[in-house]
């Protein structure tokens, strides 16, 4: 499954890096403390978070994450959008909560790594 495949079913808005939605999704991760994400997320994960700070993109790039979904309709900071465009990491905004987003991702077959 690629990033493009989750946009419509989840009703996501693409806030950055529209041209990079063909990145492969291999798993999923959700947390808001970036220190935890750095320790726990894996390459190819879709990451669901409330954080909108530019450091989100640095962490996503460092770990090779597929994309970032920002939940609860939170607008990414301007610097986050710029950085995401530069690094080619799609940033998607979901209206729903992290819990709602994760449960929809699971329904699409994206499971957490064992």
């Amino acid at each position: 499954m690629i990033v493009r495949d989750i946009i419509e079913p989840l009703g996501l808005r693409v806030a950055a890096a529209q041209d990079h939605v063909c990145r492969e999704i291999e798993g999923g991760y959700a947390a808001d403390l970036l220190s935890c994400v750095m320790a726990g997320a894996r390459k190819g994960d879709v990451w669901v978070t409330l954080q909108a700070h530019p450091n989100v993109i640095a962490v996503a790039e460092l770990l090779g994450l597929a994309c970032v979904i920002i939940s609860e309709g939170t607008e990414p900071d301007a610097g986050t959008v710029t950085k995401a465009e530069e690094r080619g990491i799609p940033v998607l905004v979901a209206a729903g909560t992290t819990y709602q987003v994760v449960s929809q991702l699971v329904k699409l077959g994206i499971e957490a790594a064992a």
Partner: protein
Amino acid sequence: MEPRIAQGEFKAVWADLHLHTVASACAEIEMIPPLIAKKAHELGLGLLAVTDHHTVDNVVAVQRAAAEYDIRVLPGMEVQTREEAHIVCLFADMERALAWQERVYAHLPDERNPEEVFGAQYVVDETGDYVQSNERLLQTSLALSVDEVVQGVRALGGLPIAAHVDRPSFSLLASLGFIPPALPLAAIEVSHRCNVERLLQQHSGLSAWPMVRGGDAHRLEEMRRSLRLQVKARILDELAMALAGAQGRSAVMA
């Protein structure tokens, strides 16, 4: 804004720049101006900053109580950004601190403090007598990002200091994983039990900023000699120079 550079002799001053009073719901009831001043005097502190959560309500009362012992008190506030990172914000005077508080209040949710859950937020006078309760919900995140807070404090001539970065929660390091290298912080604060050597091994980027210790006292026994300053006067601009190690001033953590 031109910095005020003091003339005269250098003095060694012990400081603690992170301190809560009863205006913080999480502080003990003993954190009233006369007891804070007395404890600071016993510790030999010459400079304090009062940094309650999102309010400067008790700053003047502590300033008045501390004047008895010739202890200076900078107005300050501990802010929680929308990333849930705590930033200690210090100001030169009450006028600027109140201007900042106005901005902070405009970015807090318009909700009442559930006193029975979080505890009361007492405004007191210099003797510690009750004046009123701050009814606003203060212990929550602002709708301002780290960058907006740091820039906003700087725009008022204030000093933004990342609070207790060694803690697993409410710290810039925990919330954001690393501190953005260009963030114009005046300093990074670590708690008293922090092993600085180990922290710097794990996060070498932290050496880009001056490092201070902060007592973050919520009870009298947590007040500390946190920082040893070499300054010509106990004012914000001298502190700023001390943190930057400029013109003979210095700040060494305990």
